[in-house]
């Protein structure tokens, strides 16, 4: 077995620094995205309710206006 290499401390330090920076970056971006996604979901929920309301009214109007004797 080859003896272990003496890794330069600069490389070791930058490895762990990159690891911690990555953890911080990932967790902060996750927090930011969950917040913005909650807001988008709220807006979409409201729009969906309005749209369903309009569709329901349109359907009732269409059902009232069709001329069939089979009612």
């Amino acid at each position: 077995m080859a003896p272990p290499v003496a890794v330069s401390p600069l490389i070791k330090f930058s490895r762990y620094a990159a690891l911690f920076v990555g953890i911080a970056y990932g967790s902060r971006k996750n927090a930011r995205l969950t917040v913005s996604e909650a807001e988008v979901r709220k807006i979409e929920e409201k729009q969906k309710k309005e749209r369903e309301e309009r569709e329901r009214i349109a359907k009732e109007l269409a059902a009232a206006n069709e001329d069939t004797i089979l009612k």
Partner: protein
Amino acid sequence: MAALAQRMVTALTTKGPVLAKNAVEFSKPRLQTFWYYAKVEMVPPTPAEIPKITEGFSNLIKAARTGAWMQTTVREGVRNTVVVAEIGFWFFIGEIIGRRSLIGYNV
């Protein structure tokens, strides 16, 4: 169907421990070699090595300034590229850990 389930359960209880023991015995020497190298190469730098860190950093800057980087061989250049790529991979692994999801952000 019930017989199949019963066979599976008996196989699990009889062969399960044997398989686990074989797995442990297989992995022990490999874990030992991993630990043998990791103890020296993967350990985070101790505070005693901080002056060496600053010295290495200033060496980098000096090499960039004086143009010594133009004298590097291709072999050295490839090795440096692989080292920098490894540092980049540690960043991405950190991001995976930070967002607590393997592939994307689970929003």
